[in-house]
């Protein structure tokens, strides 16, 4: 199911045919990158071991996709719709609370 967009955002209709391409490929809907789910690119996903996690937030700081956020208990989780599985969070996590696990078929 498609997530509802933030207020004021319009979901763009992507061009199909060559004559539907806007001049210069200009995009007139700001912030629409979030409608493109990069999560499908990943081959592995991060899994947190909350017993080891000290809530330092380094994973949140280093995530290049900006898809890691704390949950209600203050433990971190990745939004798998956008996580590309790069593993930078696991690499930076010095208490070794994050492991990268293979995607299931």
């Amino acid at each position: 199911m498609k997530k509802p967009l933030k207020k004021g955002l319009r979901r763009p209709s992507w061009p199909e045919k060559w004559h539907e391409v806007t001049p210069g490929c200009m995009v007139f809907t700001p912030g629409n990158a979030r409608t493109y789910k990069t999560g499908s690119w990943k081959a592995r996903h991060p899994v947190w071991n909350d017993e080891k996690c000290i809530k330092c937030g380094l994973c949140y700081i280093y995530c290049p996709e900006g898809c890691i956020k704390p949950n209600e208990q203050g433990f971190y989780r990745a939004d798998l719709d956008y996580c590309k599985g790069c593993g930078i969070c696991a690499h930076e996590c010095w208490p070794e609370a994050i492991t990268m696990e293979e995607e299931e078929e």
Partner: protein
Amino acid sequence: MGKRVGMEVAIAASEAVALCNIDVAAVYPITPQSHMAEHLADIIHDGRIDAEFITVESEHSSISACAGASAVGARAYTATSSQGLMLMHEILPIVSAMRLPVVMGNANRAVSGPLNIWNDHTDIMPQRDSGWICMFAENGQEVVDMTIQSFKIAEHPDVMLPVVLNIDGFQLTHMIEPLEFPTQAQVNKFLPPRKPFATLHPDNPVSMGCFNMPDIFTETMKAKDTALKNSKKTIVKIWNEWGKMFGRHYRPVETYRAKGAETLILTMGSMGETASIAVDEMRGKGRSVGLVKLRLWRPFPVEELRAAIGGAKTLIVMDRAVSFGGAGGPVATEIKSFLFQDRKRPRIVDFIMGLGGRDVAVDDFIAMVDRAKKKKDETYEFYGVRE
């Protein structure tokens, strides 16, 4: 019409730009374009026009600054030559892909190495596939006229593409010619202020130069190719408009005594002037020789070229660039490929000549027509090379 003034063509090119109500010029000086850069800087710093002259550190930056300026809606101009154009190479297809109507004057010069600062077309030919409208001026008056026309062509809503005007280095840029300038009022009438399709502005955000995934890149390329092909209609329309206003007429393919000629010489740029004298001499001796001048290189005016060739038996193409290890000079190779499927087509003789500032005189054109007659094979030949 204003009275004629004697002026160096490079200076005149900048004077023509000054008439065009530009907002930004980012020009890095390079021989033989330097007088264009210097004079335009003078014009702006003397306060003669209200524009910004960005003193950039390289040509890569000058074209990038023009792209940025054009994206926010400015009328932007740059000029370069040879190595400068080669340094711009990376940015050229980006400017056309973003549909930014930047105008560039290119003082044609040989590309290194070895270092050579004189005229030929080896700098513009490698830029052939960058998606720019590309045209050639033959004399100083055409440089003035075509500079002004270039802005109107580039910015037209049916075009929105950058234009490069080729001005033969030294052969044109450093000549002092009698020139007629249109008045400011006439230019204002011909060239209204730019109305951009979209601009970068925080009140109305747009993204330009967006990333394309494999599922849309092909469609984008087809759209760009179609835009460039379609621009010819508008170019011709604008040239006709100029002709009506100023009495000087411009066509994608110009001809001189070509009708019914058995042999045609094809030139680009300033060579056309010399070739026309050679044609007069040969016609005077009863030889059936005419001249075809390719003004528009991109989009390639194939229908106009076919019409100009008519029933000619031989077409001698003067290439001022080399495609090393290739099928011939870039112009002849292209013409051959366009005409290949035609049932009736002339024999095409390809001469590589006029490289790195070597003069091509009237006698040389006559010698090439003679040589073409004797030449048996279809391979290209370096005319005048010492053997």
